[in-house]
């Protein structure tokens, strides 16, 4: 970048010098013309040559397209899996991960991002990919536990000593309480927040729509993603309670301020099942398929499960996990997505265009 402006300038100044001193010479003039054209065509060629670079994944490479809060988890999983894979006599696998909002990541795969493995926040996002034929419609039955090697739930993060005395969902709509949650329209995690609140209202004999509607009148900022909401709450000092993934809440506690915040576990919450799948259409050959399958199987192995526990996910098999990683999770009543008729029903009903969430805001 620094070279280019300089070149422009030197070129011009050289010309000016030459023309000032020898106004009748012409030979120098052809040179820049040619070099400009040559430069442009060289660049065009370079651009073409570069197109060949990506997309040439070798069989021993794997792209895992995942969502935001799993970065730390998959960093360790990738390392541990690579060691195990090598120990089994294979070459070093090149495993890459991509993180972003779950919906945006699913869209990228639909539009051609060459992921062999997807590990997203919502089954409905993988369903969207399946709808394009890139993987079979019954993908969720291929692996144990609805293809969810780990689960999580929604908890409250409150300020130290819980000054507003927030214990359960009902306390969130008290006068003067400000609630921070991301926007359910743009954040997968926020959809779980919303559904958990809905489930609590149902169990406690309240009109769920009215309760959730009132809850959102207590929200001063709707960030687009879970991380943004955490920042708004923790670093900008806005709000009294943050609705967050359990794993995010623990991570935020560890990374941002164990002295400043507390986790409050409500009486009812939701069982969030982030699923994983192999994207059949992006598998180049059998060797890559074996790698992709082994990668997902590894998530279910005792080592993989231990890593999930370590990163604050509720996994299934605690045989290899550190006891303190398992013990930190309090028991609570969990409602799963089946209670809402599955994502295929809940997504359009609650979060679709003109759905219940939209009505909450447009009704006023």
């Amino acid at each position, binding site marked *: *970048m620094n070279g280019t402006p300089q070149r422009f300038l030197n070129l011009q100044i050289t010309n000016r010098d030459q023309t000032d001193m020898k106004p009748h010479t012409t030979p120098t003039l052809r040179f820049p013309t040619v070099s400009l054209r040559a*430069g442009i065509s060289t660049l065009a060629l370079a651009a073409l040559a*570069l197109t060949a670079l990506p997309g040439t994944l070798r069989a021993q490479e794997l792209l895992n397209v995942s969502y935001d809060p799993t970065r730390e988890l998959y960093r360790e999983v990738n390392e541990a899996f690579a060691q195990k894979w090598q120990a089994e006599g294979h070459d070093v696998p090149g495993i890459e991960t*991509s993180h972003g909002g779950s919906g945006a990541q699913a869209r990228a795969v639909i539009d051609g991002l060459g992921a062999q493995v997807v590990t997203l926040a919502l089954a409905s996002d993988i369903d969207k990919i399946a709808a394009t034929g890139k993987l079979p419609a019954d993908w969720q039955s291929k692996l144990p536990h609805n293809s969810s090697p780990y689960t999580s739930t929604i908890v409250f993060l409150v300020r130290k000593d819980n000054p507003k005395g927030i214990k359960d969902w009902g306390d969130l709509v008290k006068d003067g309480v400000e609630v921070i949650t991301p926007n359910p329209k743009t954040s997968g995690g926020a959809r779980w927040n919303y559904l958990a609140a809905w489930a609590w209202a149902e169990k406690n004999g309240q009109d769920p729509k009215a309760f959730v509607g009132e809850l959102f009148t207590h929200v001063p900022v709707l960030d687009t993603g879970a991380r943004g909401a955490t920042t708004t709450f923790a670093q900008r000092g806005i709000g009294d309670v943050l609705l967050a993934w359990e794993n995010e809440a623990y991570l935020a506690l560890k990374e941002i301020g164990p002295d400043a915040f507390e986790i409050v576990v409500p009486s009812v919450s939701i069982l969030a099942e982030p699923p994983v799948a192999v994207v059949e259409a992006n598998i180049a050959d059998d060797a890559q398929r074996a790698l992709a399958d082994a990668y997902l199987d590894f998530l279910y192995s005792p080592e993989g499960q231990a890593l999930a526990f370590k990163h604050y996910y509720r996994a299934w098999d605690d045989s290899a996990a550190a006891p303190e990683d398992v013990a930190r999770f309090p028991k609570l009543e969990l409602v799963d997505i089946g209670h809402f008729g599955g994502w295929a029903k809940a997504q359009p009903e609650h979060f679709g265009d003109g759905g219940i969430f939209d009505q909450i805001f447009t009704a006023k």
Partner: protein
Amino acid sequence: MSDASLITPDARPGRPRKFRAATAEAAPARLALIGIALTGVAILILAPLATVFAEALADGWAAALASLTKPDARSAIQLTLLITAIALPLNAAFGVAAAWLITKFDFRGKAFLITLIDLPFSVSPVVAGLCIVLLFGANSLIGGWLVAHGLPIVFAIPGIVLATVFVTFPFVARELIPVMIEQGRTEEEVALTLGASGWRVFWTVTLPNIRWALLYGALLCTARAMGEFGAVAVVSGKIRGKTATMPITIEMLYNEYLSVAAFSMAAALTALALITLTLKTALELRHADQLAAIRRH
């Protein structure tokens, strides 16, 4: 900006002045204007900038530098420089051609053409990314064909280049057009009458007149190209070490609670821009005499 003292020798500091020049403002007015300008810049630009550097150096220089030498960070920096190096000449060539076309010829639909050149700007980066995906995505006609022939555009470097060229499209042209309008066509017409060839007129008459504007345009283009996030985020695929540019990496790091690493990269990006701007200032100083000579004629 070229040195004010060059074009306003009467305002050069150190020269004793008893009377206010007729072409200068009264001292109180001047001070007030400077005060407003400085306050505005301090609040609107320098304070956010200071925030970036303060966050980057929260854990000291060593931590900030260490985060920038990690392989992923290095590859992000290389990728961003590569993308800028491809996008900048493309936009410079386009900008000069478009400005020449618009200022040297009279034709119908000029306002329409200028508006089309401006258009990428008013298109939200999100929509820009969407447009590129709609055109070149694997599910589109063109994109499907290209992918089948091993030339993926989206989620590969060409897509990022395209998004970058898109968002920086009007910069060079927009810088050149007002300057070339101010200059008029007389000088070129004289040169042509004296028998100079078209290229010669361009290189010896037009280019020296517009070089600062061209440089500003190129610099803006560079700075914006390096910092573009919205449109690139849609088409990049965000693969660490492969298609993650510096801004994408900043977002990734920030989302990983690695605030120091994220802001270090943001500071590095800002520093790259500062290097460009310093280079510009240095060149201005070095060639000040030539510049003044040209202007006096």
